[in-house]
């Protein structure tokens, strides 16, 4: 299951989508709106995405994860629009034969998604200000970098 949705994410459905009798381990990661970043208070987040490209990039990440680990099933769901405190913006689920692979693959997918997938977050602070998050010094994706030689190092 790969999807981008403006609806609330059904994390139970995401976990169930990776169910397999061949899996001994499943890991579900959920990212949600955190109230405080240091002293600054967030009241909600807003996500925007370049949907067609984002879906293609997520699919490439899932394909690559499946070539790196022995994965039974793998799902990535990202929400767009306003995401209130405590609500989920992303859910990633991976099932594998053994637990080490589930933890590694799920963590890798989230790490890579945060670098390579055209989705942006706007902080809506408690003081009424807003701020698009465009990380400085962040790795800027280059063509051809999405290959087997890098990533899980």
């Amino acid at each position: 299951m790969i999807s981008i949705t403006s609806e609330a994410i059904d994390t139970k459905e995401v976990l169930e989508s990776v169910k397999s009798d061949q899996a001994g381990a499943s890991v579900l990661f959920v990212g949600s709106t955190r109230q405080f970043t240091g002293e600054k208070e967030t009241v909600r987040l807003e996500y925007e995405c370049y949907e067609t490209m984002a879906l293609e990039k997520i699919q490439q990440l899932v394909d690559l994860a499946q070539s790196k680990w022995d994965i039974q099933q793998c799902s990535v769901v990202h929400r767009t629009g306003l995401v209130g405190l405590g609500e989920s913006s992303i859910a990633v689920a991976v099932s594998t034969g053994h637990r080490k692979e589930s933890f590694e693959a799920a963590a890798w997918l989230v790490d890579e998604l945060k670098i390579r997938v055209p989705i942006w977050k706007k902080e809506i602070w408690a003081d009424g200000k807003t701020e698009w998050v465009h990380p400085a010094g962040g790795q800027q994706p280059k063509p051809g970098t999405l290959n087997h030689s890098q990533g899980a190092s």
Partner: protein
Amino acid sequence: MKIQIKLFAAAREISDRGEIELEVADDISVGDLKKLVSMEYPKMKDLILRSAVSLNREFSTDECVVHVTDEIALIPPVSGG
């Protein structure tokens, strides 16, 4: 040739539009395109310096050549998750 460039996030807000249209030289490079957009939209200059350009939903480098049929977007540093 006439091209459209999709804008997202801060780039969209700074320019107040989701897509801009530009008249550019045929076979313009991505690097030259970024310079051109920076001149036309000086408020976006700092962000463009830190942004990538996608051609047909793949990240490009400054040396890539832009074709009139390409789907072009400015991709500021991403922050999903």
